[in-house]
């Protein structure tokens, strides 16, 4: 043991915030649809991490239960999202998110 170094819930929360920030910035700065999608996943999981951290800190299982829901929904979202991305790549090679604006006002 290295002294009185204990890992409190704030470590998790900082990590989650960092992951969320990376995801958010990645979503904003990258143009590749696939990478943007991965950033969204990163943000989702950052949120999951905060849920688990709070569940442990407050000794309440509801947070963990909610994570399961998030995972299920995220799985469905991945399936749909990837299908859309595949369809986009079939229609047009190397499309970036900025090119997908044919429905602009």
């Amino acid at each position, binding site marked *: 043991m290295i002294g009185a170094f204990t890992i409190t819930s704030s470590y998790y929360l900082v990590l989650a915030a960092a992951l969320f920030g990376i995801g958010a910035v990645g*979503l*904003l700065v990258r143009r590749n649809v696939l990478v*943007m999608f991965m950033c969204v996943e990163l943000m989702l999981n950052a949120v999951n991490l905060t849920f688990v951290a709070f569940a442990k800190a407050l000794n309440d299982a509801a947070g963990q239960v909610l994570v399961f829901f998030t995972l299920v929904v995220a799985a469905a979202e991945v399936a749909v999202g990837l299908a859309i991305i595949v369809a986009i790549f079939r229609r047009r090679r190397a499309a970036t*998110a*900025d090119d997908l*604006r*044919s*429905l*602009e*006002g």
Partner: protein
Amino acid sequence: MNARDVLGLVGIVALLPLIGAAFLMAFGRRLGSPRAGWVATGLMALAFAWSVVQLAALLSLPPDARSHVSIIFTWLPADQLHVNIGFLADPLSITWCLLVTGVGTLIHLYAIGYMRDDPNTGRFFAYFNLFAASMLILVLASSYLLTFLGWEGVGLCSYLLIAFWYERSTAALGGKKAFIYNRVGDIGFLIAMFLLIAQFGTLDYGATGHAALHASGGITTAIALLLFLGCTGKSAQIPLFPWLPDAMEGPTPVSALIHAATMVTAGVFLICRAHPFFDASHSAMTVVAWIGAITALVAGTMAVLQPDIKRVLAYSTISQLGYMFLALGTGAYAAAVFFVLMHAFYKACLFLGAGSVIHGNGENQDMRVMGALRRFMPYTAGAMVVAWLAIAGAPPFDGFWAKDGVLEAAYVRHDFGIWAVGIVAAVMTALYMTRLILLTFFGNARWGTSDAPAVAAVSGGSDDDDVVASEDVEAELGYEPDYLPTVVYGEPPRTPRLHGHEPHESPMLMVLPIVTLAVLSIVGGIIDIPLRGGTHLDAWLEPVFRGAPITESFAGAAALSATALAFGAVGILVAFLFYRRGLPSPADDPLQERLGVVGDVIGHGYYYDEAISKAVDGPVRGFATFLDRDVDQRVIDGAVNGTGHLVRRAAEGLRHAQDGLVRRYAIGIALGAAALLLFFLAYAGR
């Protein structure tokens, strides 16, 4: 069955012709010419019989109990307002029932003969029965709204019947004119009902009658005048009278039904029913009396030079209705009802007689080419002479008693101006009626003058095929669509249409009702002779008009009668002076020449129609165009279109925000989330 049970079934009077109308609309065509008429006439006769039963039932009750309301069901249950379908049997309604069904039956009987050759007899009698049914609903109703239903039904039927020969443009126009003029009046009736609902919360005659006694003067005057506006439309008073002369475009039995038994007396009836409101408002009464008096005089002068036998009678009806309103306006309700009844007898007789003359004279209505017809149609001539003496006010015919009662009432109430106008109008009545009788039945025969068949053949020699074709059309329609029977003032005399034949008397079926009505015109006055114990009608109607001021009989009555008689005699003498030998030739009318410009003015009905046309076509159309072009298209449409335009322009601007760049949306979401976060940090923590 006691009397009240019988009175509870008073609705059957109206139901019988209603059934006839429904039956004839469904099967009239299949029944064909005489049978449809017999069905209609039979039902009317039954309705008359049932009315007599009702009369007997009422008479068996003591006078004060002679009123029975039978509610059939609740028509409009609307919050506080309950309007029932209910019938009111009292002396007033039963009097009118007897009139409508009695005179109506005779006119129906006559119409069987008159419409024998018309291919649409089924339709005609369906409308005829519906007309009578509407009028009976009108008089039997126990509330203003049900009366209004009958009121509108009468208006509808007048439209349908005046425009019965709708292939003729003038007939179609006449029907429309009647309907539109009536609609103008109906607005008054409607607003009066709205006022009644707003003020008293009921439309029942009984309840409103009691409420009128305690209502404020302004309200009663407003209601009375608005109801009277409705009456001027239905009863053809100034200013809404011009539809009545044009109603002559209908078949003659229709004219008789409108003028004698139904429709035009509805206005008189309504004022009698609503008399508490008129009693309570002296100013409304004054308006009614003066409108009546002026109408009586003005319409009387309009009739003087008309060449068309039916149009003379039409103006005459307007004038006579003026007398009735004159009586109502002086509070002499019973005298007005008496006048309605007596007028129904002689006016129906005159109209049916005129129809007989037209029928036997090749469908010619132009009196300038008649004359000396008494030798060919003795029954018609005899009956019409009786009716003429009646309308001119000669004793002992019924018109004398009726007119005497009206004028005496005006005199006793010290309305000397009204009395004087009435007396002068009596001169006009005598003048135009004597002229009608002399031109039609006496003097020289002018129907054979220019009418040798050979001449007609020469003049139309090259059109033989056309003649045959038009005769085929005529046989199919039962009348000539191109022939416009109505003759208006200023037209050259019509070519006689007898084609060498002689005029002939109508069949017995038509003569019988005419003669019956003539007999009634002689003896009818017996129901209300102003002698001790002779005023049966006054006594009979007294419970209805209780509370109305009573006109005292007075000693100078005989002198008044003599004055009226003298004035009537002047009219007859003037007519004899000018027309005792007929006309020198169809084209020149001695009285018209003597009157000159005045003759033109009264012949054209004071150019009232022309003035209305000018006003409607000029300022009214201009105002309507202004409302259409400027108010509607610019202001109202402009507001609507402007709203749409504004939304569209805003959308045009805003849609650029939706630029399709996903990352920009993401920034929006991120900034939004950050803003929310800041908000919660700043405020929610407190």
